[in-house]
C-alpha cells in the first residue's frame, strides 16, 4: 500500500469551473496538497462529456473521453470538485478499443468529498468559517455517488459533507425544509426548460433564505452556479461557496495577473 504522498492524484477541473470558478479549482488543488497529496493537473483536459450525453448525444463524447483517458490513465486517483461530472465519468466514460482500461479508470474517479472521507479516511479538516451555512446536496453526488443518504429510502442517515462541515470552526449548518430536493440546474435542462429550472432554483434559494443561511455550499459547482444566478438576480446578500473553499480555510482571492494571459 502506497502512502498518500506517493499516490499520483490527477485533478479534473470541469470546463465550467475552469472558465468561471477558477477559485474553486485553486481551493481544491490547495486542499488536496494540504492533505498530503501529490496533485497533477494535466493541462489538456476539457470536459467530462456530460453536456452532450445528457442531451442525447453520447455519440459526440468520443473526443472528450479520449482526452480524459489520455490525461488521467496514468493516475492512481482522479479527483474532481463536481459530483455530477464524476458520476457521468463513472457511468459512461469509455474509449473505444480500450474498454477494459476505461473500466479501470472509471473506478479511480472520485468526487472531492468522498475522496477525502473514503480514500484519505480524513474525518476532520481544521478550518474556520464562522457563518450560517446551508448545504445544497447535489442530486448526482447524493443519489448517484451516495455522498449522503437520500430522504426517499428507509435507511440509516449519513452525510459525508456534513461530517466534514460540522467540524469546521464556527460554521453553523442550517436545517432546510427540504433537505435533498433538486435545484433544477440539470445541464441543458436549465435553458431548454427555463421556466421550471428557474422555479426550482428559486424554491431552493428561498428554503435556504427562510432558514437563515448566509452562504449556500455544496460539492457541485454547477448547482451553485445556477443558484448564484438566481440569488444575484434577486439582489440577495446570500452567497454561494464551494465546499472546497470552506475546507481550504477561507475564501481565496485569485491573484490578478499582470496583463492578459497568452
Amino acid at each position, binding site marked *: 500500500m502506497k502512502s498518500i504522498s506517493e499516490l499520483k492524484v490527477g485533478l479534473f*477541473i470541469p*470546463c465550467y*469551473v475552469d*472558465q*468561471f*470558478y*477558477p*477559485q*474553486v*479549482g485553486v481551493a481544491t488543488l490547495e486542499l488536496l496538497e494540504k492533505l498530503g497529496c501529490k496533485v497533477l*493537473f494535466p*493541462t*489538456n483536459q476539457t470536459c467530462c462529456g456530460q*453536456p*452532450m*450525453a*445528457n*442531451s*442525447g*448525444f*453520447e*455519440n*459526440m463524447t468520443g*473526443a*472528450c473521453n479520449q*482526452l480524459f483517458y489520455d490525461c488521467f490513465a496514468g493516475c492512481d486517483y482522479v479527483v474532481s470538485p463536481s459530483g455530477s461530472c464524476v458520476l457521468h465519468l463513472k457511468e459512461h466514460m469509455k474509449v473505444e478499443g480500450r474498454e477494459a482500461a476505461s473500466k479501470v479508470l472509471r473506478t479511480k474517479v472520485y468526487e472531492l468529498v468522498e475522496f477525502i472521507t473514503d480514500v484519505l479516511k480524513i474525518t476532520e479538516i481544521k478550518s474556520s468559517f464562522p457563518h450560517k451555512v446551508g448545504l445544497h446536496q447535489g*442530486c448526482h453526488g447524493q*443519489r448517484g455517488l451516495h455522498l449522503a443518504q*437520500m*430522504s*426517499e*429510502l*428507509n*435507511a440509516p442517515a449519513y452525510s459525508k459533507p456534513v461530517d466534514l462541515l460540522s467540524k469546521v470552526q464556527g460554521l453553523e449548518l442550517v436545517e432546510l425544509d427540504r433537505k435533498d*430536493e433538486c435545484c*433544477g440546474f*440539470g445541464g*441543458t*435542462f*436549465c*435553458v*431548454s*426548460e*427555463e*421556466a*421550471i429550472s*428557474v*422555479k*426550482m432554483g428559486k*424554491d431552493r434559494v428561498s428554503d435556504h433564505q427562510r432558514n437563515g443561511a448566509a452562504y449556500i455550499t455544496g460539492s457541485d459547482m454547477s448547482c451553485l*452556479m445556477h443558484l*448564484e*444566478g*438566481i440569488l*444575484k*438576480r434577486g439582489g440577495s446578500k446570500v452567497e454561494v461557496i464551494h465546499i472546497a473553499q470552506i475546507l481550504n480555510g477561507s475564501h481565496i482571492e*485569485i491573484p*490578478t*495577473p499582470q496583463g492578459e*494571459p497568452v
Partner: protein
Amino acid sequence: MSILPKDHAEASEVFNKDEGYVNWHDETLWFVRQKRDKSSKNIPEWEALREAGSQIKHYVLSHLDRLLVEFERNAKENGVIVHWAKDASEHNRIVLDILKKHQVQQMVKSKSMLTEECHMNEFLAQNGIDVIDTDLGERIVQLRQEPPSHIVLPAIHLKKKDIGDLFHEHLGTDAGATDPQYLTEAARQHLRDKFLTRRAALTGVNFAVAETGGFVVATNEGNADMGAHLADVHIACMGFEKIIPKQEHLGVFLRLLARSATGQPITTYSSHFKKPREGQEMHVVILDNGRSTQLGREDFRNSLKCIRCGACMNTCPVYRRSGGHSYHNAVAGPIGSILAPNLDMTKNADLPFASTLCGSCSNVCPVKIDIHDQLYKWRQVLAKNGHVPKGKQMGIKAMSVVLSQPRFYQWSGRLGRAVMRSVPFVVNNAMNPWYKQREMPEPPKESFRDWYVRNREN
C-alpha cells in the same frame, strides 16, 4: 380535449405564469410525498418489500406468456369471458361490442388509466354510449372535459373553488360553495342515481392473479364495487403487465401500493373479483397496445413493472411545478415520460428531456424501476432517431467540437470571457434563456488552467 398540444417546456412556461398557484400545486403534492415517506418509514422491512415487489415483477416480465395463458384458463373456468386486444382501437371495439350486445347505452366506469390511454370515453361517446366516471376526481375532470392530470389524483390541479364553480354549473350546488363535505355529498347524490340506473360497469384492474384467474381493484371510494355489483355486465380492462403469479403476492403489492400512492397503509377498498354473480356477465379485456414492443426493448422493459402508484409524480420536482397536463400523455410524470415514447416517439420526444435526472423517482418507486436511467437512455434513442430539434442538435455539435480540442477550448473560453467582460450585452440579453431570470456568472480574467500554468508550471 381542451388541452392544446404544446411541448412540455412551453406548457410549463404557461403553468408557471401564476407563481402562487405553482407554489400551491407543489406544496400539495409534496405533502403527499411526505405522507408516503412517513408511512414507508413506519415499516422496517420497507426496502425489502420494494425489492420483493421488483423481483416478482421481474419474474412476471420474463414469464408473461405462461402467466397470461394460466390466467385466461383459470378466469374462463370461473365463468369470466376473456378478450385479447392488440391495440387501443381493438380494445375500444371489444368494449363497444359487449355494450351493443346487451343494448346498453349508458355505463358507469371506475378509475382506469388504461381507458384513458385508449381514449375510450371519446370513442364510446362517438358511438352513442354515455360513460359516467364514478371516481370523484375522474368525474370532476370529465365534467370539465379535460384529461386527468395525475394517475391517482386526477383532479389534483384544481382548487376547492374550481370544484365549487364546476358543481354549481353542472350539479346545481350553491354558488360560491367550497365546503368539501357539501360538494362531495352533492357528487354522491348525483352518482348514486347513475349507479342505480346503469346496467354496465367498467373497472380497471390493479392486479390479476394467474393462479386463481381473479383480479383486484383498489379504490378509496368503493365506486368500483358499487358499479360492478349493481350492473348486469362487468367489464374489467387491464394491460397485460398487471399479471402477478400468485394470490400470496398481493401481500407484497397491496402493502406497497397505497403507502407509495398516498401514505395510507392500504386503500379503503381492495376488491377481489373472481366470478360473475348469478345472472351477471363478467368480461376481462387484456390489452397489449405497444407493451410487447416495450418488453422487447431491453433498456426499457422494466418500465412495465409499474403498479401505477404515482409516487414518482409526487416526488418529481419538475412534475410538481409543471402539472400533469404538461406531459400531454395519459400517464404523466417520470413514469409517463419513459412509457410515452414507446407509444409515439415523434409526439413524445420532449418528455424524456423534461427531467433534471435527479433520480428521486427511481428511489421512491415501489418496484424499483430505474426511471431516471431510462430517461437518459430514451434521450439517446430519440437523438439517434432524429427526434431532437435541429437547432439543439447543432448547438450540441458545436459544443462538442469546442470541447474536443483543448487549444480551441482554451481560446474560445478566453474569448468568451473577454466578450462577457467588455460587451456584456452580447450574452446578457433576451436571446439567452439563462439570463432571462438569472445573472450570468462573473467572468474571471484567468481560467483555472491559465492560473495553474502561470503559478505552477514555471
